[in-house]
């Protein structure tokens, strides 16, 4: 009723909301039916492939890691080749706490992992995000390499290349234990964490903050011109992305009961970048599609041709790069549009 105190305002809002563009914008963040598909698939996987839960767990961790990268790369346009720095920070937080029997409760450990990774993120972000392009790429990469070398030099503490073995992780909620042989708990636990993180990310990117990130990516100058605090937004986004990567790393350490230097490896950072580009960046579900396609192909090709599976993977990447713009989701969209166009034409 108080709105009546401001005459004309409701009418204008109403009028704008009726505009097709406005309707599109408002409808954008509404849940669409197909958005339930990944979760239905994940649930179905649990029942249909009980023998593959170890693989399924590592797939979901990669999805979460790729989602965290999407926030930085896809939405804020921060091109980084050092995202494993945060994955590793999270993994080592969980690993060191568990190895030295300081803290083994899984969910709070993940929060600590997120905090540690966020700390690395904010510190490096403040320094590095002044640059862009190849320079930023190399700076993020070198920062990650430094962390890895540091972890190697502190091997008395971190276990170095051989890592921290046989981590003891307390049961989830004090009830559900992690069984290495039948990783049911690991799978469902990871699925739940992924779901919570996903809801958070989805809400974030459709919030005004998320929209301003897209603005920065699309037109940096204009965002500066309208007075948006560009640097600060970028650093905040980078930090959130780092925290999520830290959760992925923490999950990796918990479900494997093991951490070593590979958590901070360039291999890991490059693979997640490839996965995200393969799926399609800046579109939320690219992480799902890319990770599923890349990892399933790798996993099953490697079983058939343990020595030559990289050939198949390479061909997939080349084909997608040539025929798709913005990954497999982009390719799917093109095909879908053509199909729709043909149907409406006929």
């Amino acid at each position, binding site marked *: 009723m108080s709105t009546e105190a401001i005459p004309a305002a409701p009418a204008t809002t109403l009028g704008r909301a009726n505009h097709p563009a406005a309707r599109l914008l408002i409808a954008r963040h509404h849940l669409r039916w197909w958005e339930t598909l990944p979760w239905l698939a994940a649930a179905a996987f649990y029942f249909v492939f009980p023998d593959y839960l170890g693989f399924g767990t590592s797939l979901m961790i990669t999805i979460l890691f790729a989602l965290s990268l999407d926030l930085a*790369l896809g939405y804020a346009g921060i*091109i980084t080749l050092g995202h494993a720095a945060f994955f590793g920070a999270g993994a080592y937080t969980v690993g060191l706490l568990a190895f030295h029997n300081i803290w083994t409760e899984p969910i709070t450990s993940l929060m600590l992992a997120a905090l540690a990774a966020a700390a690395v993120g904010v510190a490096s972000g403040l*320094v590095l995000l*002044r*640059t862009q392009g*190849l*320079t930023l*790429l*190399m*700076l993020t*990469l*070198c*920062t990650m*390499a*430094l962390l890895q*070398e*540091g972890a*190697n*030099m502190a091997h008395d503490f971190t276990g170095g290349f051989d890592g921290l073995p046989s981590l003891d992780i307390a049961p989830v909620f004090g009830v559900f234990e992690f069984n290495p042989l039948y990783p049911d708990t690991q799978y469902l636990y990871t699925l739940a964490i992924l779901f919570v993180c996903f809801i958070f990310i989805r809400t974030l990117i459709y919030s005004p903050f998320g929209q301003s990130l897209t603005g920065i990516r699309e037109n940096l100058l204009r965002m500066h011109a309208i007075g948006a605090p560009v640097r600060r937004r970028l650093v905040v986004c980078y930090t959130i992305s780092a925290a999520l990567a830290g959760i992925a790393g923490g999950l990796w350490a918990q479900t494997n009961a093991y951490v070593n230097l590979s958590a901070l490896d*360039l291999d890991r950072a*490059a693979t997640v*970048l*490839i996965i995200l*580009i*393969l799926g399609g*960046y800046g579109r939320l579900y690219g992480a799902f599609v890319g990770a599923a396609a890349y990892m399933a192909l790798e996993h099953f090709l490697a079983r058939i041709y343990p*020595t*030559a*599976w*990289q*050939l198949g*993977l*390479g*061909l*997939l*990447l*080349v084909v*997608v*790069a*040539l025929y798709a*713009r*913005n*990954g497999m989701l982009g390719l799917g969209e093109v095909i879908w549009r053509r199909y729709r166009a043909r149907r409406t034409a006929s």
Partner: protein
Amino acid sequence: MNAAIDFASILLGGLAAGTVLFIVSVGLSVTMGLMGFVNLAHGAFAMFGGYIIVLAMNRAHFGFPVALALGFLGTAALSVVLEQSLYRRLYRAGELDQVLLTIGLIFIFMATLTILVGPQSQPLQLPSELGGQINLGFMQYRTYSIFLIVVGALIVVGIWLAFERTRIGAQIRATVDNRRMAESLGINVDRLFTITFAFGSGMAALGGGLGAEFLGLDPQYALKYLVYFLIAVSVGGLGSVVGVYYASLLLGTLDFILKLYLPKGGTIFIYVLTILVLLWRPQGLFGRKSA
């Protein structure tokens, strides 16, 4: 006196290591600077060329110079084929799509070499005249390192002359400076790129072969050393030949000196140096501000 000789030998070793880095990276710098194409498969070309050179010597018993020529030409030819069929289609695509394509190519190169030649590394058997030690007047030093340093210097002078004195060189410089302007002046940028791309890949092949003495040569090569190539390019400044040369030599020698006096620091120096340089000059030592 002894300390001075030690220092000189470390300096020479660093210069030789830097020279290898330069020969491989120079092509990457030019293609990235010229077309803005992120060609991560550049290391794969170096690997491919290195394989041609080493196999030509070990299996077909060609001499070192002939093998080097074969490696250069074979890799340049392959790169033209790939450029025409694959790279060309992604010139106007985003850099991330280019990353996807070129990482895919790396995988294909790695798997193909593993299948065809095997996972083992390929040794470079130097001709005997390059094998031993050479007397520099004040000290003995590894002949091959001195040979590399000289070759590297000749190459950089050669490329510099080609850039400054030839028509194509002028066109390349113009295109790096302002591509649209160059195109509107009637420079055939596509053809220009094909030529530079082939040349850069051929140089990478030479680097793969010449550097095999230090870096080895196996199917992992393309990924293993990619970071170092990228570091040389970014520290030197995109598109700058002289920049890559100085950056490579600087990184090579500083890395050696720091390792001699502070061995516990291990491998971190090259990363620390890169971070410091790039924070100080984001465009690289010899890059242009706009890049």
